């Protein structure tokens, strides 16, 4: 074992002694900085991928649960973050499955409630229908009553019209009679005047005859 350790140490030393470089430290540092820059670049790329994926997901209408939309849009030359996409897809699938199951399991009570509601609605409708029917009957009865009244009124109006017409006729007849009477009166007055004058003339004549 010691030998192995020794040998390895010797070899290591040999190697170190053989590759001794005076800029080794700077190279190492540069290498580490490069490494850091590469890591940073990877990190930024990863971040951009996440943002683009979030953007894609946030705009999807199918997803029930989705991330909030980032304020800054991701660059177009970045690929999507598949892992994140899957995560969200699976999560939403799970939600849908749960909701489906819930829906399946809750169908019967819903139907029952629906049935109750329907029955209640039917009752209400029946009640309303009955009330409306009653109102309708009352309105019909009122209309019938009004029609009866209208009929009576029409009959009465016709009667009044007949009476009025007969009054007009009577008035015309009365006017005719009045005119006839006036004519008769005129003739009678004339005849009376004629008789008076005739009598006067006869009396005067008798006076002169007697002389």
């Amino acid at each position, binding site marked *: 074992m010691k030998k192995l350790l020794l040998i390895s140490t010797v070899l290591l030393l040999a190697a170190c002694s053989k590759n001794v470089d005076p800029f080794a430290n700077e190279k190492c540092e540069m290498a580490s900085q490069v490494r850091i820059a590469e890591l940073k670049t990877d990190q930024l790329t990863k971040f951009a991928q996440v943002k683009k994926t979030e953007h894609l997901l946030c705009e999807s209408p199918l997803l029930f649960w989705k991330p909030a939309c980032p304020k800054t849009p991701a660059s177009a030359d970045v690929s999507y973050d598949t892992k994140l996409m899957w995560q969200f897809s699976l999560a939403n699938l799970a939600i849908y499955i749960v909701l489906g199951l819930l829906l399946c399991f809750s169908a019967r009570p819903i139907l029952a409630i629906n049935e109750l509601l329907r029955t209640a609605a039917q009752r209400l409708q029946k009640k309303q229908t009955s009330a409306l029917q009653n109102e309708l009957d009352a309105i019909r009865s009122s209309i019938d009553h009004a029609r009866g009244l209208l009929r009576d009124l029409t009959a009465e109006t016709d009667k009044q019209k007949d009476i009025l017409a007969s009054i007009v006729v009577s008035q015309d007849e009365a006017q005719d009679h009045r005119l006839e009477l006036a004519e008769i009166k005129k003739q009678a007055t*004339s*005849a009376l005047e*004629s*008789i008076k004058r*005739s009598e*006067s*003339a006869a009396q005067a004549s008798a*006076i002169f005859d007697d*002389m």
Partner: protein
Amino acid sequence: MADEKKNNRHQLIAGPSSRSVYARKREIGLIWLNRWGYSTPKLLEELLGLKKPAGRYLVEKLVKAGEAREVFVEGATAGYSKLELIEGKRTEVAPFLVMLTEKGKTLAQMMDNETEGSNWTRQLHGTQAVKHNLMCQYATVTFKRKLGADFVGYMPEASTETESKAGIKQPDVLLTKRVGDQYETIALEIELNPKYNTHGALDKALRGILYALKTKVQSAVYLFAAGKTGERYQAHWNLGKIPVWKKSAAVGWVKDLSVPPILIEPPYDKALSFSYPSWMRGTPWK
């Protein structure tokens, strides 16, 4: 007893005095003479209700007072005969009429409010006209006597115009009487001569009567001396229409055919009476 005698004396002297009665009769006589133009003593007697000689005495008084004069008329038929004492007997010497003098006419005109009086000169143009006038006076006097208190007044044609402005003849006399509370005027026409319609004289006379009936009188009486004349008048009146006549320079009076005849319609057709009294053939004013 003494009081009774006194009362009797008062009764005897009650009423109008004889002087006032004479004055009233004189006034009536003057108005009569003024309206008719002239008259006779007998007519004055009858008018004033005097006994027979009183009319003559009244005339004598009027003549004496210078209010009237006696006028002698040619022809014995017209007037009254003047009586004179011949050998102690009153005898008719000549017919005469009584007319007013200028003094009497002035007096009469002061008393009469209704008319100025007649035109004397026109009235004495012929014995026939005088006879007609006296006949009208006799009819008026008799009318007054018969009616008594109901007699209201008279208006002879001589006091008015013989023709209206339209050329329509006026009735000879208008006599007014009281009938109840009203007055009634009668037109009197006296026809002595037989008139013929050759020149429309008959139509014109009837038209005058119809006009009077339509305007101022209730009835009219036509008195005829001859029955035939009266019948002719009556037949014309009964035709119911009176043609209008006009004077043509070539042939005298002719019917105007351009004017429709005047219709005699009720109540005027029965308002005219025709009579033929016997006194019309005598001289009742004598």
